[in-house]
């Protein structure tokens, strides 16, 4: 699934016991994709000695906070789902 700027997304809350870069406090949270940075080697396989290919697209995602602040985080595409 490729996301466009402005798409509403939800961070997957699936269990994953190995190395991954998706922070727990964002799992299950709804946000907005702001842009795709680029595609990078996958840290989830690279952490175990592989070359990390194929590359995975990494998005800048914005999460709204009460009071108008927001959290910006980089989330890999395979951790993002389309918001219902």
């Amino acid at each position: 699934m490729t996301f466009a700027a402005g798409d509403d997304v939800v961070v997957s809350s699936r269990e994953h016991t190995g190395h991954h870069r998706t922070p727990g406090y964002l799992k299950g949270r709804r946000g907005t994709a702001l842009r795709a940075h680029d595609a990078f080697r996958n840290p989830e396989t690279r952490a175990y000695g592989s070359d990390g290919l194929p590359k995975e697209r990494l998005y800048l995602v914005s999460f709204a906070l009460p009071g108008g602040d927001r959290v910006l985080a980089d989330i890999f595409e395979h951790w993002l789902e389309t918001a219902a």
Partner: protein
Amino acid sequence: MTRAVHDRGGWPTDAPIDRREHDLADWELLMDALENALEARGVMNTDEMRRGIESMPLQEYESVSYYERWLFTTETILEEKGVLLPGELDERVSS
């Protein structure tokens, strides 16, 4: 949801953030240099290094400093890859 030792964002706490600056000890600078050299030579990569830190037992993770975690993971990954024998560092240090 299971969260590993390093995955701490959003943990409730009343503790203040320690914003004091501190000088790095010589061994900490060397630890940083060693890590970068190992990565530049393709011996280990950043993701392996992070994975090693995340594998630390909670109590140990909590009780050691930033670069002590780097030392832990470097020894762990180098042993895993057979660059170091298990216990080799301890043996050299104590001899």
